[in-house]
C-alpha cells in the first residue's frame, strides 16, 4: 500500500478516476486512432511475419510489391476483395454471413482498455492515452475472447460441412481450455497489483516494492515478469493456444481438416475478416502480455534513466517496440516448433497448466500473506506446509496411478503382440519372418543394357 501513496504524487500516471471525463469527440478520435492503428498493424504484421519467417528459412519472402515488399499485404487485401464471393448451397445463410462480423468486432473491442501511454494533451484536453478503463478491464478482455468463440463455432456450424463443423468445435474447445489457464495466470498479477484495471496495473509496475527476508530489505523489481515468472511462462503458452498459433494451430491442421472452421469461406472479404480477427487477437494477447507483465508503456531500463522517457507521447513508441518484440516471438515460435497432436494439446492444457497454475497461485498467496500478516506467521507457515504436503501427496498418488496404467498398457500391448504372433497368417506381426513365402511376380528374363 505504501507504494501506491508514493505513486499518487506522479500526475502522469492515470488512475481510474481520470477516465470517463473525455468529451465525446475525444473518445471518437481515440477510437478512430485505435481502429487505424489496428488496421495498419495487421497490414504490417502480415508482411513482417512473412518476411521474418522467410529470413529464418533462408528465403527472401515477399519483395516485389513496394519497397521491401511492404505493399504485399495491401495487394493481398485488394486481391481478396476482387475474388468471387461464394455462398455454398448448403450453408445457413444468416449465420454464415454474420459469423465473420461476430468474430471481428470483439477482437477490435478488446483494444479499448489497452493503455498506450500516460496522461497526454490532446487538442488542448488533458486525457490518458487509452480509450477507456474499467474496474474490471481484464475481465472485459476475457469476456470478449469468449464472444469471439461464438464466431468460430457459428462459422463452422453454419457451413454445414464436416471439416468446418469439426474445425469449429476443435477450435472452440481449444480456446476455452486455454482461456482457463490464461485467466488463472492473471490471478497472481491481480494479487500484487490489487486491481483489475489496466492503467493501475501499469502504475503498480512503476515502482518495485520491498521484501524483508531474514531481517534484510530487498527491493523487488518493478516489472511483474520478474516477480511472477511462473505466471508469465504459463501465460506465454496460453497466448499461443488462445490465438490458435503454431504449435497449437490444430483448428487449421490442413493435413486433416483443410482449413478448419473457415473451409467454406472462399478467399473473399469474408475470409479477410477471419484473417483480420486472427491478427488482431494476436495483437490483443501481446498487448495484454506487455500491460500485465512488461510494465505496459513504461520505458525499459536503459531508456528509463532519461527523465522524459515516461512523459508525453514517447511511451507510445516504447509500447509499439514491445509489441514488435512480442510479435517477433510469435513468428520465431512458428518458425521453430512443429504442430502438436490434439490429445496432447488438450491433455497439456487440462492436466498440466491448470493444476500447476492453481498450485502457484496458492503458493504465491501464502508468501504474500506471510508478508502482510506478521501476527499469524506460524499459522500461515503451518498452512503452507499443509498445502505443499497435500500437493506432494496428490502428485505421488497420481504418479503411482500413472505408473500402474503404463505397466497395464505395456502388458496389454505385449499380450496383443503375442496373440498376433501366434496367428499363422500374420506370423510374427509386426515384423515379417524371414522365411515368409514370397510372391516373386512374373519371371522375366534379364536384358543386359547395351546389347539390343
Amino acid at each position, binding site marked *: 500500500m505504501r507504494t501506491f501513496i508514493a505513486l499518487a504524487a506522479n500526475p502522469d500516471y492515470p488512475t481510474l478516476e481520470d477516465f470517463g471525463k473525455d468529451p465525446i469527440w475525444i473518445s471518437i478520435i481515440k477510437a478512430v486512432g485505435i481502429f487505424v492503428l489496428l488496421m495498419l498493424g495487421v497490414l504490417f504484421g502480415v508482411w513482417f511475419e512473412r518476411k521474418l519467417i522467410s529470413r529464418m528459412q533462408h528465403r527472401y519472402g515477399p519483395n516485389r510489391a513496394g519497397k521491401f515488399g511492404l505493399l504485399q499485404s495491401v495487394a493481398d487485401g485488394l486481391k481478396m476483395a476482387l475474388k*468471387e464471393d461464394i455462398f455454398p448451397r448448403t450453408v445457413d445463410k444468416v449465420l454464415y454471413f454474420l459469423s465473420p462480423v461476430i468474430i471481428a468486432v470483439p477482437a477490435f473491442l478488446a483494444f479499448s482498455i489497452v493503455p498506450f501511454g500516460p496522461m497526454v494533451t490532446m487538442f488542448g484536453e488533458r486525457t490518458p492515452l487509452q480509450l477507456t478503463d474499467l474496474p474490471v478491464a481484464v475481465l472485459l478482455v476475457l469476456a470478449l475472447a469468449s464472444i469471439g468463440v461464438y464466431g468460430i463455432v457459428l462459422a463452422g456450424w453454419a457451413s454445414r460441412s464436416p471439416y468446418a463443423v469439426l474445425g469449429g468445435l476443435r477450435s472452440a474447445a481449444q480456446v476455452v481450455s486455454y482461456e482457463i489457464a490464461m485467466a488463472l495466470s492473471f490471478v497472481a498479477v491481480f494479487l500484487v497489483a490489487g486491481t483489475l484495471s489496466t492503467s493501475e496495473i501499469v502504475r503498480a509496475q512503476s515502482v518495485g516494492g520491498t521484501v524483508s527476508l531474514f531481517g534484510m530489505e530487498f527491493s523487488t523489481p518493478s516489472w511483474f515478469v520478474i516477480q511472477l515468472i511462473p505466471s508469465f511462462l504459463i501465460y506465454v503458452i496460453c497466448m499461443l493456444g488462445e490465438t490458435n498459433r503454431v504449435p497449437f494451430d490444430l483448428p487449421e491442421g490442413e493435413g486433416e481438416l483443410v482449413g478448419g472452421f473457415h473451409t467454406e469461406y472462399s478467399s473473399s472479404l469474408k475470409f479477410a475478416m477471419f484473417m483480420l480477427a486472427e491478427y488482431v487477437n494476436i495483437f490483443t494477447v501481446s498487448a495484454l502480455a506487455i500491460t500485465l507483465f512488461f510494465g505496459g508503456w513504461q520505458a525499459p531500463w536503459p531508456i528509463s534513466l532519461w527523465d522524459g522517457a515516461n512523459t508525453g507521447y514517447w511511451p507510445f513508441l516504447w509500447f509499439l517496440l514491445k509489441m514488435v518484440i512480442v510479435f517477433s516471438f510469435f513468428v520465431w515460435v512458428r518458425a521453430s516448433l512443429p504442430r502438436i497432436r490434439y490429445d496432447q494439446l488438450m*491433455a497439456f492444457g487440462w492436466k498440466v497448466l491448470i493444476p500447476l497454475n492453481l498450485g502457484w497461485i496458492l503458493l504465491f498467496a501464502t508468501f504474500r500473506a506471510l508478508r502482510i500478516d506478521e501476527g499469524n506467521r506460524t499459522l500461515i507457515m503451518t498452512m503452507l506446509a499443509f498445502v505443499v504436503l497435500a500437493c506432494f501427496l496428490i502428485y505421488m498418488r497420481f504418479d503411482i496411478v500413472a505408473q500402474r496404467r503404463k505397466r497395464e498398457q505395456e502388458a496389454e500391448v505385449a499380450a496383443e503382440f503375442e496373440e498376433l504372433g501366434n496367428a499363422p497368417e500374420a506370423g510374427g506381426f509386426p515384423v515379417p519372418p524371414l522365411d515368409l513365402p514370397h510372391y516373386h511376380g512374373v519371371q522375366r528374363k534379364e536384358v543386359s543394357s547395351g546389347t539390343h
Partner: protein
Amino acid sequence: MELYVPILVLAVLAAGFAIFSVSIAPFTGPKRWNRAKLDAYECGIDPTPQPVGGGRFPLKYMITAMLFIVFDIEIIFLYPWAVAFDKLGLFGLVEMVLFIVTVLVAYAYVWRRKGLDWD
C-alpha cells in the same frame, strides 16, 4: 456508465467496418456460376449429406464445455479474492485454500473417470 461509452464508439466503428466489408463482398468480385463450386468442399469427393439443423458431433466437446463452466466460475471467484487479498489477509487465504481443495476434488474425479482424456 461514462466508462463504457468509448467502448460503444469503438464497437460502432468496428461493426460498421465488418458489416460493410462482408456486405460489399458479393459486389466487388466476379460472378461465374458453377454447380460444383456451390457444393460443400470435401477435397473433390461428393459432399457428405448433412442433416437439416446440423449433424451430430462427438460428446467430448460438450464435456469440455461443461468443465469450462466449472473452472470459469472458479476464476470468477478468484478475481475479487485476488483484488481484496491484502485486506482479507489470513481469512481470505484459508477460505481460498478450502475452495480450491473443493474444486480439486471434482477435478480429480473427472480425471479418474477419464473426462480429460482424448482417445
